[in-house]
Structure formats: structure tokens, C-alpha cells
């Protein structure tokens, strides 16, 4: 069956890929070499969930590359997951803008410190950041840990360092956070969920 270029594009834009057209007995000749297929056709599709409100809409994330070792991926498109029984493929104005959030100019890319009294940030390594924070924590915990209350009851708590936990974090992060904080004896813990 012969087909000109314009007709071929028309079929493609109706959502059919080149291979299925061939299966149907179409065999576009010279036109095939020129066609630019949809970027999404070669993108990697990953199922995820919009992090904004608690409808927790299913999303399909399309990225370049095939996730093979050392390949660089970039998100090129996000849309609602039609299989998800709650959002059934829809997204709201917030969810429809997810790519701009992930690629926000204000994403943090490396650890920084603002020294006491300083007026600017300073880039530091992960090792330096974590070493310094761990030292602060230990010093504060050792100085202020309460093993027993005034009545002699064992209480084993550390109240002088506080932690506000994220509601955007996943369950596994939440679980590891609470497990670690309680083991340290921390009691000044609260979550965004309260407000």
C-alpha cells in the first residue's frame, strides 16, 4: 500500500507506532526514513506518585535514556497514570507542573554551611558536613542527656535537640527517622502533619 508523507504523519499522530503500521500491511516506502517519531516512544516510562496533596495521584514519568549503567537520564515529560484507580490519568494544575519542580533553579546540589555570624553560604563536602553535625549532636547529647528524672525514674531522654520531620518523605524514610531518633533518646520531635 502506498502512502504519501502527509498521510503517514496523519496516521502517526493518531497514535500508531511505525511497527504496528507495518503489521497492518502498510508499508510506507521512502517516507519512513524521514519521519521523526515521538520522543516519548523512545523514553523510559517510570511509575511514581505526585508528592503534593494526599490524593497521591499516580504519574508516569518519561525520561531520556534506558537507565543503563553510567547513562545520564533527564525527565522530559510527566503525565497522570491512567491505571491509577483514584486519578485515572488526570492531574491538577499543581501536578501538571511537576517537571518544573524537579528541575527548579532552587534545587540544592551540594552541602553548604553558614558559619555563625557569617553573611554567606560556603560549599563543603559531605564528609565535612556530616562529621561536623555528628560532633554537634554528640556534644549536645552528652551535655544534656537526662538518664533519670528528679524522682529517680529512668527516663533516658535528650530534649535539647529537636527534629521536624517531613510529610513529603516516603514511609521508609519516616520509619528510619523515627527509629534512629528514638534510639538517640530524642523527644522533641514533630511533623508537618500537625500543621
Amino acid at each position, binding site marked *: 500500500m502506498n502512502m504519501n508523507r502527509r498521510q503517514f504523519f496523519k496516521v502517526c499522530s493518531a497514535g500508531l507506532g511505525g511497527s504496528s503500521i507495518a503489521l497492518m500491511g502498510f508499508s510506507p516506502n521512502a517516507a519512513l526514513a524521514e519521519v521523526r517519531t515521538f520522543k516519548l516512544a523512545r523514553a523510559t516510562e517510570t*511509575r*511514581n*506518585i*505526585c508528592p503534593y*496533596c*494526599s490524593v*497521591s495521584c499516580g504519574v508516569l514519568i518519561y*525520561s531520556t535514556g534506558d537507565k543503563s549503567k553510567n547513562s545520564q537520564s533527564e525527565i522530559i515529560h510527566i503525565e497522570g497514570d491512567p491505571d491509577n*484507580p*483514584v486519578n485515572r490519568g*488526570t492531574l*491538577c*494544575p*499543581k*501536578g*501538571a507542573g*511537576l517537571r518544573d*519542580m*524537579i528541575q527548579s533553579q532552587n*534545587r*540544592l546540589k551540594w552541602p553548604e554551611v*553558614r558559619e*555563625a*555570624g557569617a553573611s554567606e553560604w560556603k560549599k563543603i563536602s*559531605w564528609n565535612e558536613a556530616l562529621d561536623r553535625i*555528628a560532633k*554537634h549532636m*554528640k556534644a*549536645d547529647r*552528652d551535655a*544534656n*542527656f537526662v*538518664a533519670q528524672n528528679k524522682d529517680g*525514674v529512668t*527516663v533516658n531522654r*535528650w530534649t*535539647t*535537640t*529537636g*527534629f*521536624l*520531620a*517531613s510529610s513529603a518523605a*516516603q*514511609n*521508609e*524514610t519516616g*520509619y528510619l527517622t*523515627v*527509629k*534512629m531518633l528514638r*534510639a538517640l*533518646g530524642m*523527644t*522533641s520531635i*514533630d*511533623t*508537618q*502533619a*500537625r500543621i
Partner: protein
Amino acid sequence: MTNHWVDIKNADLIFVMGGNPAEAHPCGFKWAIEAKKNRKAKLVVVDPRFNRTASVADFYAPVRPGSDIAFLGGVINYLLTNDKIHHEYVKAYTNASFLINEGFSLEDGIFTGYNEEKRSYDKANWSYQMGEDGFVKVDQTLQDPRCAFQLLKTHYSRYTPEMVAKVCGTPKEAFLKVCEYIAETAAPDRTMTSLYALGWTEHSVGSQNIRCMAIIQLLLGNMGMAGGGINALRGHANVQGITDFALYAQNLPGYLAVPSDAEPDLKTFLDKKTPKLLRPGQMNFGQNLSKWYVSLHKAWWGDAATKENGFAYDFMPKLAGASDVLSIFDQMYQGKINGFFCQGFNPLASVANKKKVGDALAKLKYMVVIDPLATDTSEFWKPHGEFNEVNPAEIQTEVFRLPTTLFAETTGSFTNSGRVIQWRWKAVEGPGDAKDDTEILAGLFLRLKEMYAKDGGAYAEPIQKLTWAYRIPGKPSPEELMMEYNGKALADVTDPKDPTKVLVKAGDQLPSFAMLRDDGSTTCGNWIYCGVWSQAGNNSARRDNSDPSGLGQTLNWGFAWPVNRRILYNRASADLAGKPWDAKRTVLKWLGDKWGGNDIPDMRPDAAPEQNVMPFIMTGEGVGRLFSLGLMNEGPFPEHYEPFETPLDANPMHPNNPKALSNPAARVYKGDMEAFGKAKDFPYVATTYRLTEHFHYWTKQSRINAIMQPEQFVEIGEELAKEKGIVAGDKVKIRSNRGFIKGVAVVTKRIKALDVDGKKVHTVGIPIHYGFKGATKPGFITNTLTPFVGDANTQTPEYKAFLVNIEKA
């Protein structure tokens, strides 16, 4: 949510008050539209603003911010005086017939046992009358003047339509029309779903707003029904999960109680915290506390948790009193906190009274921000013009900022508002050197563990003994963590009725919390999530969306807690004989030998109807509570109190009792009471709200959202605009007693002045989303204005009703 998002489509009436799902939860609100289209359901909206949910409603009624209890109390009174209740349900499934202690009463707005100095109640008399058999006394005729039903009737008899109009500013006819819609769902085969959000919680009486709806839904027989229930439309995509994992002080994962100083050992703790059976034959499921609690300690401290040491009871820190976000910032303000972590949380913007929060942060020795984005909080010390006027040289806090990955860059699970746990897959790497939160936490923890091993220090045992059997210790994987909190058998778990029968083999993942034991033979990091990763694998990753019931239950999609149950209290969807109240929407029914239907039974599977095991299995009574005993801090029945900043001189319900003006049991810190404004200086009611195009203080960082809603605005009604000579587009300054912000005036017909207690009350609407960091135009933080006082139970700040003045800037 007691029900779930898709279940909204099964409702006959969708009652939205305290929320605005069309704008804040658009993809979930679709199911309200489905109900309207396919079931001819009605949508009724009560809100201070004629918002976009109201614009598609069948009926809308205005209400003054902070007067919800007066309105809902009026609904309760209407249902009782017009006999629009589901009698059989109320009699059997609620504590209507339970007799209440003679010593309990309400006098001029104050319940018995009040201590004004401590702003709290002695709740001893807020209790049941106990019989000699050890169970609560009941009067099945509901005629005894001391039964909960009669006390409820008396309590709400004061909430007449005239009183509602006076307190709420809602025209009497509009209020009665709303009541008529609600009353129709008292029929056994009709249901109302209640959708609410922060518009109910962000008040000094927030929890009692919701208690009112609990009473209404019990009276109507709508709990447990498809298309019924009380449905909190929550914030973030995993706010439910983070609440379930108890990232706050007062609970442990799965809402377990936390040991306090009054419980020095495990036995005392379990004796005090395990609920007592209050009526014969009830499940009193909370009696299993010991199994859940011991399994948690075994998950965390493994072999170090032995029978001999009370399963390492002393490893768990005891609660140090209040430690909600307001109390933490107050402590910090007083210089009692030295270090502070903000994990994906922007408190400078999101906590009340920005000035106090900023001053508190400046008193810290060190602060650690763990976030994917440059938040306002991380730069509280940095001058940003008039939006953040500070002098860095005077602020000695050492601030660390650690970059984390976002949702698209990690694998793991989120729990939606309908309690459905769903797995997500990582799409790309994070930018630059960003790391997963888990890797950052592990990095800190392993450093501390090593330092304590090397140098010693305060009580290192719980740190050294914490289970950490992750394949890569510095990078615990989400799969390992989910398997851990699901729990496993350490020894064979056998059938209590037949010890030769092995139910779960040693080493296997547990299929359900029914397998948990208190002898140390099981682990479980969060009992309500048990079953999410069974031997069958990761059930949260299941993606079969088939729906044979047609009710939208999709039982093979993800995994709902508890035990994949989609509608809580579903035993109440059937009558005493086990026959569904509405066969067309069967959730559960008695099959002759067991419970079956379209959900996982919220009932012992073999409890025959004649055994009279009642549906509310988590209570010692087995029934829903119209009278809530001592569980709420301000009283067993909700009573109307004014917001802490009220436009009125007195509580119209108690004009001569200044003690009953605002919530008598709400905690107010020194200095904060003085910072409340008075109506003579700040004559307008303000309420904060959210826009469709923005999510909290997050999307201001995203370009497309910033293009759609670029700048702070303030919404005022036409009448107020005229009075103040303000026209649309004018720059205005809004002041409260704590500071000011500026924004562009938007003049609308959506907010009308209301006639309240003979006084004209104007309301100003203020979107919250702006700040000095982000892609939007730099702006003021709305919470500069809000008062530092919270609900008496949850301490959620009163963002929805306070006083301001407004002028042209």
C-alpha cells in the same frame, strides 16, 4: 479517611465544610462530580468564601470563620428535635444508651472539673456509671436522664436555628436548608460523606469541629457505609504515612502509646495503657497492645530486647511533656533548645508568628536543613529586604544545608489519604551531590555509633544495640526498610488453639498483625502496616485495578492499612442480623458461617450476629461514642467557643462568662496571650487559604506555578473595599498584632459581610503560598500575621480565624 477517595462516588450527599476540594484536591474531587452525575447525589458547601467547590454545589451557605461548632451543634439539635436519626443504628452501635456519671455537667459554658489557673480540666466525672458486674450500665429505652442520648439532647437544645444565625452569621433559612439535606441521609439506605480539611483543623477548637461531625454521622448511621464516613482530605502525598509512623513525640508507630515517667517498667506501662473491656462480649482489639509494643522493640533492638530486661523497655525515651511544633519553638525561644533539624519542612513560613519563629531559630547553636530546595527557613539569618529584616552578624546559629532527592529520584511508598499504601519507582538521579534522606540519616547515625564506641558518652547502649542489618549499612534500601517494618517471625508462630499447627515459619515475613506475639518471637516496626510485605512480596506494588464490586474498592491495588481494609467500621454497614442496610452498596454481610462481601471484615470473621459483637472494635465498648469521656481536653460534648482573636466582645452562647469566651483548655504561652489583638484595633476577621495553582510553600519554587500565580494577593469583599476606598489591583497592607504583610487587593463577590450578633463582620481571605525564596515574586510570609495558639488536643495553630486591619499600602 475512614473511607477512601473513589468511595466518594457512592454518596447520596457530599457535605463539604472545612475544606475546598475542587481547588485543593481536584483529582479527588472528581469523585464528588461522579456521584452527582451518576447517582444524582447532592453537593452542599458551607464555607466563609463562595469558593470553587461552592460554585458547583447544589446549595451553599456562608459561615463566619471559627463558628463551626455552633453550626454543627445546630445540625445535631435539628436532627434530634425533628427525629431525623437512624434509630436502630444509634441504639445498637453508639453509646447512646450508656449511663453517664452523675457528677458530670456543663455550667455556663464550662464543664465540671475546670482549673482556671492551669487552663485544664480534672476529667474524673466525665465517665460512665459502672455496674456491679464491672460493665457500663445502660438503659436500652434511652429514657434515663443520665444516658448519653438524653444528655446530648439537652446539651444541644441551646443550639437553635436562631442561635446559629446569631453566632455564625448564616441566614436562618440557609441553615435550615442545609439541615434538610443532611437529615435525608438518616434513612438506612441513604448516606452522606463528610469531606473536610484544614478549614476544620486549624482552629483552637479544631478537634471538636470534627467530633461534631462524628456525632452527626453516628446519629445518621453513616459510619461504615459505602459513600459515608468522615473523610479528612489531608496535605502532602504521604502525610498519612508519616502520621502512621508517628514522626511526633506523643505516639510510636501505629499510634502506640509512648511510655511516660509514670510508667517505670513494661508491666506498669502495659497495665495502664491497655484498654479495659467495658461491655460483655466485645472485641476490645486494643487489648493486643502488648503484642504490638513488644514486636516494635524486637524490630528495633533485636537480641538485646529480652524478656528479662522488659524487652529493652528502658531503651525507649520517656515522653518529656508537650513537644508539638508550637511548644518546640516556644522552648527554643526561651533558649532551652540548642540543635534543630528541619527535614523537608519550612517552619519559618509554615508555623504561626514568623517573628517569634525567626527569633527562636536565632538562639540555636546549630541548625540542619535537609531539603531538596533552598527554603526560606534555611535563610532565616539572611536579609531579604523588607520581607526578612535581620542582621546576620547578630545571629550566631551555625546553619547546615544538605541537598536531598525528590520523589522522582527515589523508590519507596506513599500512603494516600484513604490509607492506601502505594509503591513508587525511581526515574532519574538527583541533581549534583544530592543524596536520599535515608543515606543522610544513616551517615549521621553510623558516625555517632562509631564516636560512642571510641570515646564513650551518655547512655550509648540503645545506639549500639539498634538493629542495622542493612546490606549496605550507609544506604538502607527502601525494600529492606519496608520488610523490616512489616515484621517477621523470629521463631515458628503457632496457632494458640493448636500449638502443633505452625502458622508462620521462623524467618518468614508476617501476613498480618494477627500473627504478632508478645513473647519476643515476632518483630514488627509498625503493626498497622503488617501485611504490606508478606511472603507474597511487596503488596504495595500490586497494580490490579479491577473492581468487581463496582464500588471502587480495588482490593488488589496497593495495600490499605489495616489488613487491606478499605472502609473502616464496615460491620456497621449491616444491621444487627448482618443484612446490609443498603443491598445495592453491600460492603459486608453475614454469610451464615462468616462475614463476607466487598471488603476485609472489620470484625472477627466468625462472630455470628447473635453474639452481638459491636462494630467499633477498637473501643472497649464496641460502639461509637456520642459522649467521648475524657478523651478530649475541652469536654465530652463539643461546645462553641470563640477564636482567640474574636470580633465579638463576648461568646454569644455565654455572654456573661468571660471564662467561656475562647477554648478554656487551650494552652497559651506567656507573651502570646498579650500578643492577641482586640477587635477595636483589628476589626476584620482573617482566614488563610490555598490556591489551586500552588501547594503550600513548595511550588513557589517551580517556574510554571509561579507563572500561573506569581504574587501575593489578598481577597476582600466589595462592601469592605468600598468602605476602605480600595479598588482591585491596589497594593494593601494587612496588619495583625504580630506584624504586617503587603499584597495586591482582589475585590470579589465571593466573601460577603455577615450579620453576627447584631454586628457586621467582614472577612479577609489571605492565600499562604508566598515568601522570599522561590520563583514567584518575593513576598511577605503570611504567617507573620497568625497567632501562636493551637487546638487544645492537637496544638494545630489557629490559622483560620484571627483579626487584622487593612489599609492601602
